[in-house]
Protein backbone atom coordinates (compact mmCIF):
# COMPACT_ATOMS: atom_id res chain seq x y z
CA UNK A 1 0.00 0.00 0.00
CA UNK A 2 2.42 2.69 -1.03
CA UNK A 3 1.07 6.06 -1.93
CA UNK A 4 -1.37 8.54 -0.50
CA UNK A 5 -4.92 7.29 -0.01
CA UNK A 6 -7.90 9.27 1.09
CA UNK A 7 -11.15 7.50 1.71
CA UNK A 8 -14.61 8.72 2.54
CA UNK A 9 -13.59 12.32 3.13
CA UNK A 10 -16.34 14.71 4.11
CA UNK A 11 -15.57 18.35 4.56
CA UNK A 12 -17.98 20.94 5.90
CA UNK A 13 -16.98 24.59 5.79
CA UNK A 14 -19.27 27.35 6.97
CA UNK A 15 -21.99 24.74 7.25
CA UNK A 16 -21.76 23.99 3.56
CA UNK A 17 -20.80 20.48 2.50
CA UNK A 18 -17.81 20.92 0.19
CA UNK A 19 -17.44 17.26 -0.59
CA UNK A 20 -19.01 14.17 0.81
CA UNK A 21 -17.57 10.66 0.85
CA UNK A 22 -14.76 11.70 -1.46
CA UNK A 23 -12.12 9.09 -2.13
CA UNK A 24 -8.89 9.60 -3.89
CA UNK A 25 -5.52 7.99 -4.36
CA UNK A 26 -2.12 9.26 -5.39
CA UNK A 27 0.41 6.65 -6.41
CA UNK A 28 4.14 6.80 -6.78
CA UNK A 29 5.20 8.38 -10.07
CA UNK A 30 1.92 10.19 -10.55
CA UNK A 31 0.96 13.82 -11.03
CA UNK A 32 -2.61 14.65 -10.13
CA UNK A 33 -4.07 17.90 -11.32
CA UNK A 34 -7.00 18.86 -9.11
CA UNK A 35 -9.57 20.97 -10.93
CA UNK A 36 -12.71 22.68 -9.82
CA UNK A 37 -14.41 26.07 -9.72
CA UNK A 38 -13.67 28.61 -6.99
CA UNK A 39 -15.16 27.52 -3.71
CA UNK A 40 -15.32 23.86 -4.65
CA UNK A 41 -12.98 22.98 -1.81
CA UNK A 42 -9.66 22.41 -3.58
CA UNK A 43 -7.64 24.14 -0.89
CA UNK A 44 -9.65 22.44 1.84
CA UNK A 45 -8.92 19.06 0.26
CA UNK A 46 -5.21 19.79 0.02
CA UNK A 47 -5.11 20.94 3.63
CA UNK A 48 -6.84 17.75 4.70
CA UNK A 49 -4.32 15.71 2.73
CA UNK A 50 -1.50 17.41 4.62
CA UNK A 51 -3.18 16.98 7.97
CA UNK A 52 -3.43 20.72 8.57
CA UNK A 53 -7.17 20.47 8.88
CA UNK A 54 -9.13 17.46 9.86
CA UNK A 55 -12.05 16.21 7.81
CA UNK A 56 -15.52 15.79 9.25
CA UNK A 57 -15.32 12.10 8.40
CA UNK A 58 -12.87 9.86 6.61
CA UNK A 59 -9.13 9.30 6.81
CA UNK A 60 -5.96 9.83 4.89
CA UNK A 61 -3.28 7.16 4.86
CA UNK A 62 0.26 7.36 3.57
CA UNK A 63 1.98 4.06 2.79
CA UNK A 64 -0.75 2.32 4.73
CA UNK A 65 -0.32 4.40 7.89
CA UNK A 66 -2.93 6.91 8.97
CA UNK A 67 -1.28 10.32 8.78
CA UNK A 68 -2.62 11.40 12.13
CA UNK A 69 -1.23 8.32 13.89
CA UNK A 70 2.36 9.05 12.91
CA UNK A 71 2.57 12.61 11.65
CA UNK A 72 6.33 13.06 11.86
CA UNK A 73 6.90 10.07 9.57
CA UNK A 74 4.55 11.56 7.02
CA UNK A 75 5.91 15.08 7.35
CA UNK A 76 9.41 13.87 6.53
CA UNK A 77 8.11 12.78 3.15
CA UNK A 78 5.95 15.83 2.51
CA UNK A 79 6.33 19.29 1.12
CA UNK A 80 3.26 21.50 1.27
CA UNK A 81 3.27 24.87 -0.42
CA UNK A 82 0.09 26.79 0.16
CA UNK A 83 -1.22 30.16 -0.93
CA UNK A 84 0.95 31.70 1.71
CA UNK A 85 4.65 31.71 1.07
CA UNK A 86 5.72 31.02 4.67
CA UNK A 87 8.47 33.60 4.29
CA UNK A 88 8.96 36.28 6.89
CA UNK A 89 9.17 39.63 5.15
CA UNK A 90 11.77 41.03 7.52
CA UNK A 91 14.25 38.22 6.90
CA UNK A 92 16.27 37.52 3.78
CA UNK A 93 15.65 34.59 1.45
CA UNK A 94 18.69 32.80 2.77
CA UNK A 95 17.65 33.26 6.41
CA UNK A 96 14.14 32.09 5.70
CA UNK A 97 15.26 28.99 3.84
CA UNK A 98 17.98 28.13 6.32
CA UNK A 99 15.41 28.29 9.08
CA UNK A 100 12.89 26.22 7.14
CA UNK A 101 15.47 23.54 6.43
CA UNK A 102 16.51 23.35 10.05
CA UNK A 103 12.86 23.14 11.08
CA UNK A 104 12.27 20.27 8.72
CA UNK A 105 15.28 18.47 10.08
CA UNK A 106 17.33 18.60 6.90
CA UNK A 107 20.77 17.56 7.95
CA UNK A 108 23.82 17.82 5.79
CA UNK A 109 23.58 14.16 4.89
CA UNK A 110 20.20 14.59 3.22
CA UNK A 111 21.68 17.01 0.76
CA UNK A 112 23.93 14.62 -1.01
CA UNK A 113 25.38 16.91 -3.64
CA UNK A 114 27.12 19.35 -1.39
CA UNK A 115 27.61 19.04 2.30
CA UNK A 116 27.23 22.70 3.03
CA UNK A 117 23.62 23.80 3.33
CA UNK A 118 24.29 27.43 2.58
CA UNK A 119 26.05 26.84 -0.69
CA UNK A 120 23.22 24.52 -1.74
CA UNK A 121 20.72 27.25 -1.00
CA UNK A 122 22.77 29.74 -3.00
CA UNK A 123 22.94 27.28 -5.86
CA UNK A 124 19.21 26.67 -5.90
CA UNK A 125 18.43 30.38 -5.70
CA UNK A 126 20.80 30.96 -8.58
CA UNK A 127 19.07 28.24 -10.58
CA UNK A 128 15.77 30.02 -9.92
CA UNK A 129 17.14 33.32 -11.17
CA UNK A 130 17.49 35.06 -7.84
CA UNK A 131 21.18 35.92 -7.99
CA UNK A 132 22.00 38.93 -5.88
CA UNK A 133 18.71 38.85 -4.02
CA UNK A 134 19.70 36.25 -1.43
CA UNK A 135 20.38 38.75 1.35
CA UNK A 136 17.59 41.22 0.65
CA UNK A 137 14.66 41.15 3.08
CA UNK A 138 11.94 39.16 1.35
CA UNK A 139 9.37 41.96 1.55
CA UNK A 140 11.44 43.96 -0.95
CA UNK A 141 11.14 41.21 -3.57
CA UNK A 142 8.38 41.18 -6.17
CA UNK A 143 5.48 38.73 -5.84
CA UNK A 144 6.97 36.47 -8.51
CA UNK A 145 10.38 36.50 -6.86
CA UNK A 146 8.84 35.68 -3.49
CA UNK A 147 7.02 32.80 -5.12
CA UNK A 148 10.32 31.56 -6.52
CA UNK A 149 11.92 31.69 -3.09
CA UNK A 150 8.99 29.71 -1.68
CA UNK A 151 9.24 27.16 -4.47
CA UNK A 152 12.96 26.69 -3.95
CA UNK A 153 11.99 24.35 -1.12
CA UNK A 154 11.13 21.78 -3.75
CA UNK A 155 14.78 21.74 -4.77
CA UNK A 156 16.09 21.76 -1.21
CA UNK A 157 14.14 19.07 0.59
CA UNK A 158 14.04 15.51 -0.64
CA UNK A 159 10.44 14.52 -0.16
CA UNK A 160 8.20 12.07 -1.96
CA UNK A 161 4.87 13.82 -1.67
CA UNK A 162 4.37 17.32 -2.97
CA UNK A 163 1.14 19.09 -2.19
CA UNK A 164 1.10 22.34 -4.15
CA UNK A 165 -1.73 24.83 -3.92
CA UNK A 166 -1.68 27.17 -6.92
CA UNK A 167 2.10 26.99 -7.32
CA UNK A 168 2.10 28.97 -10.59
CA UNK A 169 0.54 32.13 -9.14
CA UNK A 170 2.61 35.23 -9.95
CA UNK A 171 5.24 33.26 -11.85
CA UNK A 172 6.38 34.43 -15.28
CA UNK A 173 6.55 32.07 -18.27
CA UNK A 174 10.12 31.10 -17.58
CA UNK A 175 9.27 30.36 -13.99
CA UNK A 176 6.29 28.23 -14.97
CA UNK A 177 8.44 26.16 -17.32
CA UNK A 178 11.12 25.77 -14.68
CA UNK A 179 8.59 24.49 -12.19
CA UNK A 180 6.83 22.22 -14.66
CA UNK A 181 10.13 20.61 -15.61
CA UNK A 182 10.94 20.09 -11.97
CA UNK A 183 7.55 18.47 -11.46
CA UNK A 184 8.07 16.20 -14.45
CA UNK A 185 11.45 15.14 -13.16
CA UNK A 186 10.07 14.50 -9.69
CA UNK A 187 7.35 12.28 -11.09
CA UNK A 188 9.90 10.45 -13.24
CA UNK A 189 11.92 9.80 -10.08
CA UNK A 190 8.92 8.10 -8.52
CA UNK A 191 7.60 11.06 -6.57
CA UNK A 192 3.95 12.01 -6.27
CA UNK A 193 2.41 15.41 -6.77
CA UNK A 194 -1.04 16.82 -6.29
CA UNK A 195 -1.50 20.34 -7.51
CA UNK A 196 -4.16 22.88 -8.30
CA UNK A 197 -3.86 25.61 -10.88
CA UNK A 198 -5.86 28.24 -12.73
CA UNK A 199 -4.44 27.32 -16.11
CA UNK A 200 -4.15 23.86 -17.57
CA UNK A 201 -0.76 22.27 -17.19
CA UNK A 202 1.39 22.47 -20.30
CA UNK A 203 3.02 19.40 -21.91
CA UNK A 204 6.23 20.38 -20.11
CA UNK A 205 4.74 18.99 -16.93
CA UNK A 206 4.47 15.53 -18.46
CA UNK A 207 1.50 13.22 -18.24
CA UNK A 208 -0.99 13.88 -15.54
CA UNK A 209 -4.33 12.68 -14.27
CA UNK A 210 -7.13 15.15 -13.72
CA UNK A 211 -9.43 14.94 -10.73
CA UNK A 212 -12.48 17.17 -10.66
CA UNK A 213 -14.19 18.67 -7.67
CA UNK A 214 -17.65 20.04 -8.26
CA UNK A 215 -19.23 22.99 -6.62
CA UNK A 216 -22.03 21.75 -4.42
CA UNK A 217 -24.94 23.51 -2.85
Amino acid at each position, binding site marked *: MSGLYASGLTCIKR*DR*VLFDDFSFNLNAGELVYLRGPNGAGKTSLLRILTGLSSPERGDVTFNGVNISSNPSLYYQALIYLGHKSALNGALSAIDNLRFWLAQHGIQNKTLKQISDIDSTIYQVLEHLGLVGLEDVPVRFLSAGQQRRVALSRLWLKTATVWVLDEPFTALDTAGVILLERKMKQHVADGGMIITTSHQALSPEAGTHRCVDLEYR*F
Partner: protein
Amino acid sequence: MWKWLHPYAKTENAYQLCVTLQPWLWLGALLCLAVGTVWGLAFAPQDYQQGDSFRIIYIHVPSAMLSMGTYVAMAIAALVGMVWQWRTAYMSMIAMAPVGAVMTFIALFTGAAWGKPMWGAWWVWDARLTSELILLFLYIGVIALYGAFEDKQQAGKAAGVMALVGVVNIPIIHYSVEWWNTLHQGATISKFDQPSIAPEMLWPLLISLFGFAFFIGAVTTVRLRSEIVRREMHRPWVQKLAQATSENS
Protein backbone atom coordinates in the same frame (compact mmCIF):
# COMPACT_ATOMS: atom_id res chain seq x y z
CA MET B 1 -20.72 4.27 31.09
CA TRP B 2 -21.22 7.23 28.79
CA LYS B 3 -22.24 5.09 25.83
CA TRP B 4 -25.87 6.15 26.08
CA LEU B 5 -24.78 9.69 25.28
CA HIS B 6 -23.08 8.88 22.01
CA PRO B 7 -26.14 8.78 19.76
CA TYR B 8 -26.71 12.45 20.58
CA ALA B 9 -23.55 13.38 18.72
CA LYS B 10 -25.75 13.14 15.65
CA THR B 11 -27.66 16.30 15.05
CA GLU B 12 -30.91 14.49 14.19
CA ASN B 13 -30.92 12.64 17.48
CA ALA B 14 -30.04 15.73 19.44
CA TYR B 15 -32.87 17.55 17.70
CA GLN B 16 -35.31 14.78 18.56
CA LEU B 17 -34.14 14.84 22.17
CA CYS B 18 -34.83 18.56 22.32
CA VAL B 19 -38.30 18.03 20.88
CA THR B 20 -39.08 15.37 23.47
CA LEU B 21 -37.68 17.26 26.44
CA GLN B 22 -39.03 20.66 25.62
CA PRO B 23 -42.67 20.36 26.79
CA TRP B 24 -41.61 18.78 30.08
CA LEU B 25 -39.05 21.49 30.71
CA TRP B 26 -41.59 24.22 30.00
CA LEU B 27 -44.15 22.52 32.23
CA GLY B 28 -41.61 22.17 35.05
CA ALA B 29 -40.53 25.78 34.65
CA LEU B 30 -44.10 27.06 34.69
CA LEU B 31 -45.13 25.03 37.74
CA CYS B 32 -42.03 25.64 39.82
CA LEU B 33 -41.75 29.32 38.99
CA ALA B 34 -45.42 29.92 39.69
CA VAL B 35 -45.34 28.08 43.02
CA GLY B 36 -41.89 29.29 44.07
CA THR B 37 -42.31 32.97 43.29
CA VAL B 38 -45.87 33.30 44.56
CA TRP B 39 -45.00 31.46 47.75
CA GLY B 40 -41.78 33.38 48.16
CA LEU B 41 -43.06 36.83 47.27
CA ALA B 42 -46.46 36.68 48.91
CA PHE B 43 -46.62 34.02 51.61
CA ALA B 44 -43.17 33.37 53.03
CA PRO B 45 -42.55 35.12 56.36
CA GLN B 46 -40.84 38.49 56.50
CA ASP B 47 -37.20 38.77 57.43
CA TYR B 48 -36.91 40.23 60.92
CA GLN B 49 -34.11 42.58 59.82
CA GLN B 50 -34.79 43.38 56.21
CA GLY B 51 -38.56 43.25 56.09
CA ASP B 52 -40.03 42.63 52.70
CA SER B 53 -36.99 43.71 50.70
CA PHE B 54 -35.32 40.39 51.36
CA ARG B 55 -37.95 38.70 49.17
CA ILE B 56 -35.82 39.51 46.15
CA ILE B 57 -33.68 36.51 47.06
CA TYR B 58 -36.31 34.32 45.43
CA ILE B 59 -35.13 35.79 42.14
CA HIS B 60 -31.61 36.83 42.99
CA VAL B 61 -30.23 33.67 44.54
CA PRO B 62 -31.47 31.22 41.89
CA SER B 63 -30.29 33.40 39.05
CA ALA B 64 -26.89 33.94 40.66
CA MET B 65 -26.40 30.24 41.38
CA LEU B 66 -27.51 29.18 37.95
CA SER B 67 -25.44 31.81 36.18
CA MET B 68 -22.37 30.07 37.57
CA GLY B 69 -23.89 26.66 36.96
CA THR B 70 -24.62 27.46 33.33
CA TYR B 71 -21.05 28.56 32.77
CA VAL B 72 -19.79 25.29 34.22
CA ALA B 73 -22.26 23.40 32.03
CA MET B 74 -20.90 25.27 29.01
CA ALA B 75 -17.38 24.29 29.91
CA ILE B 76 -18.44 20.65 30.29
CA ALA B 77 -20.10 20.79 26.87
CA ALA B 78 -16.93 22.31 25.42
CA LEU B 79 -14.85 19.54 26.94
CA VAL B 80 -17.18 16.89 25.57
CA GLY B 81 -16.94 18.52 22.16
CA MET B 82 -13.18 18.58 22.33
CA VAL B 83 -12.74 15.02 23.52
CA TRP B 84 -15.33 13.30 21.34
CA GLN B 85 -15.38 15.77 18.45
CA TRP B 86 -19.10 16.39 18.67
CA ARG B 87 -20.61 19.25 16.79
CA THR B 88 -23.75 19.05 18.90
CA ALA B 89 -21.75 19.61 22.07
CA TYR B 90 -20.41 22.91 20.75
CA MET B 91 -23.88 23.82 19.55
CA SER B 92 -25.39 23.23 22.96
CA MET B 93 -22.58 25.19 24.57
CA ILE B 94 -23.35 28.18 22.44
CA ALA B 95 -27.09 27.67 22.95
CA MET B 96 -26.51 28.03 26.68
CA ALA B 97 -24.24 31.08 26.54
CA PRO B 98 -26.76 33.90 26.10
CA VAL B 99 -29.15 32.25 28.57
CA GLY B 100 -26.38 32.18 31.15
CA ALA B 101 -25.44 35.76 30.37
CA VAL B 102 -29.04 36.85 30.93
CA MET B 103 -29.12 34.97 34.24
CA THR B 104 -25.96 36.81 35.25
CA PHE B 105 -27.55 40.07 34.27
CA ILE B 106 -30.68 39.27 36.30
CA ALA B 107 -28.51 38.44 39.30
CA LEU B 108 -26.64 41.72 38.91
CA PHE B 109 -29.80 43.73 38.45
CA THR B 110 -31.62 42.22 41.39
CA GLY B 111 -28.46 42.48 43.48
CA ALA B 112 -28.19 46.17 42.71
CA ALA B 113 -31.90 46.72 43.39
CA TRP B 114 -31.53 44.96 46.70
CA GLY B 115 -28.49 47.05 47.49
CA LYS B 116 -30.48 50.26 47.40
CA PRO B 117 -32.51 49.63 50.60
CA MET B 118 -29.66 47.64 52.18
CA TRP B 119 -26.73 49.96 51.62
CA GLY B 120 -28.39 53.08 50.31
CA ALA B 121 -26.57 52.83 47.00
CA TRP B 122 -27.41 51.13 43.76
CA TRP B 123 -23.97 49.74 43.29
CA VAL B 124 -21.54 48.71 45.97
CA TRP B 125 -18.38 46.77 45.18
CA ASP B 126 -19.56 43.79 47.15
CA ALA B 127 -17.53 40.64 46.57
CA ARG B 128 -20.32 38.55 45.10
CA LEU B 129 -21.66 41.30 42.90
CA THR B 130 -18.17 41.96 41.59
CA SER B 131 -17.67 38.26 40.83
CA GLU B 132 -20.99 38.24 38.99
CA LEU B 133 -19.91 41.25 36.98
CA ILE B 134 -16.67 39.52 35.96
CA LEU B 135 -18.68 36.42 35.12
CA LEU B 136 -20.79 38.57 32.83
CA PHE B 137 -17.57 39.74 31.15
CA LEU B 138 -16.52 36.12 30.67
CA TYR B 139 -19.87 35.33 29.06
CA ILE B 140 -19.54 38.35 26.81
CA GLY B 141 -16.07 37.20 25.78
CA VAL B 142 -17.29 33.73 24.80
CA ILE B 143 -20.29 35.09 22.90
CA ALA B 144 -18.21 37.74 21.13
CA LEU B 145 -15.57 35.21 20.14
CA TYR B 146 -18.22 32.89 18.74
CA GLY B 147 -19.77 35.72 16.80
CA ALA B 148 -16.47 36.83 15.32
CA PHE B 149 -15.92 33.64 13.32
CA GLU B 150 -17.75 33.06 10.07
CA ASP B 151 -17.18 29.33 10.12
CA LYS B 152 -19.40 28.35 13.00
CA GLN B 153 -17.70 25.05 13.60
CA GLN B 154 -14.39 26.80 14.11
CA ALA B 155 -16.26 29.37 16.19
CA GLY B 156 -17.60 26.66 18.48
CA LYS B 157 -14.15 25.20 19.06
CA ALA B 158 -12.60 28.59 19.74
CA ALA B 159 -15.39 29.63 22.10
CA GLY B 160 -15.00 26.25 23.80
CA VAL B 161 -11.34 26.93 24.58
CA MET B 162 -12.31 30.28 26.03
CA ALA B 163 -15.09 28.72 28.12
CA LEU B 164 -12.57 26.28 29.57
CA VAL B 165 -10.05 29.02 30.30
CA GLY B 166 -12.88 30.90 32.01
CA VAL B 167 -14.03 27.96 34.08
CA VAL B 168 -10.52 27.41 35.43
CA ASN B 169 -10.55 31.08 36.33
CA ILE B 170 -13.96 31.25 38.00
CA PRO B 171 -12.81 29.88 41.37
CA ILE B 172 -9.63 31.97 41.24
CA ILE B 173 -11.64 35.08 40.42
CA HIS B 174 -14.19 34.26 43.09
CA TYR B 175 -11.65 33.86 45.88
CA SER B 176 -9.43 36.71 44.78
CA VAL B 177 -12.38 39.08 44.68
CA GLU B 178 -13.65 37.92 48.05
CA TRP B 179 -10.23 38.43 49.51
CA TRP B 180 -9.82 41.81 47.85
CA ASN B 181 -13.18 42.78 49.28
CA THR B 182 -12.25 41.93 52.85
CA LEU B 183 -9.02 43.91 52.44
CA HIS B 184 -10.71 47.02 51.22
CA GLN B 185 -14.05 47.11 52.98
CA GLY B 186 -13.08 45.90 56.39
CA ALA B 187 -15.79 44.03 58.24
CA THR B 188 -18.98 44.92 56.44
CA ILE B 189 -21.68 42.43 57.03
CA SER B 190 -22.47 40.65 53.84
CA LYS B 191 -26.16 40.45 53.16
CA PHE B 192 -25.76 36.79 52.34
CA ASP B 193 -24.19 35.78 55.63
CA GLN B 194 -27.37 34.53 57.17
CA PRO B 195 -26.56 32.08 59.94
CA SER B 196 -29.38 29.82 58.82
CA ILE B 197 -32.51 30.17 56.86
CA ALA B 198 -35.93 29.24 58.17
CA PRO B 199 -37.47 26.26 56.41
CA GLU B 200 -40.55 28.24 55.40
CA MET B 201 -38.16 30.56 53.56
CA LEU B 202 -35.99 27.75 52.20
CA TRP B 203 -38.72 25.75 50.49
CA PRO B 204 -39.91 28.46 48.14
CA LEU B 205 -36.27 29.27 47.41
CA LEU B 206 -35.54 25.68 46.43
CA ILE B 207 -38.65 25.49 44.30
CA SER B 208 -37.84 28.66 42.46
CA LEU B 209 -34.26 27.42 42.01
CA PHE B 210 -35.68 24.39 40.21
CA GLY B 211 -38.00 26.65 38.29
CA PHE B 212 -35.07 28.70 37.02
CA ALA B 213 -33.16 25.54 36.14
CA PHE B 214 -36.10 24.18 34.15
CA PHE B 215 -36.50 27.53 32.48
CA ILE B 216 -32.84 27.63 31.44
CA GLY B 217 -33.17 24.08 30.14
CA ALA B 218 -36.27 24.95 28.16
CA VAL B 219 -34.77 28.05 26.56
CA THR B 220 -31.58 26.16 25.82
CA THR B 221 -33.46 23.41 23.99
CA VAL B 222 -35.33 25.99 21.95
CA ARG B 223 -32.07 27.68 21.03
CA LEU B 224 -30.34 24.39 20.35
CA ARG B 225 -33.15 23.31 18.03
CA SER B 226 -32.97 26.47 16.01
CA GLU B 227 -29.17 26.34 15.97
CA ILE B 228 -29.25 22.79 14.61
CA VAL B 229 -31.80 23.67 11.96
CA ARG B 230 -29.90 26.78 10.93
CA ARG B 231 -26.60 24.96 10.67
CA GLU B 232 -27.99 21.89 8.91
CA MET B 233 -30.37 23.71 6.64
CA HIS B 234 -29.17 21.88 3.55
CA ARG B 235 -29.24 18.42 5.03
CA PRO B 236 -31.96 16.09 3.76
CA TRP B 237 -33.41 15.37 7.21
CA VAL B 238 -34.04 19.05 7.88
CA GLN B 239 -35.67 19.49 4.51
CA LYS B 240 -37.89 16.49 5.17
CA LEU B 241 -38.78 17.98 8.54
CA ALA B 242 -39.60 21.32 6.98
CA GLN B 243 -41.83 19.65 4.44
CA ALA B 244 -43.62 17.66 7.11
CA THR B 245 -44.24 20.81 9.14
CA SER B 246 -45.56 22.78 6.22
CA GLU B 247 -47.89 19.95 5.25
CA ASN B 248 -49.30 19.71 8.75
CA SER B 249 -50.07 23.39 9.00
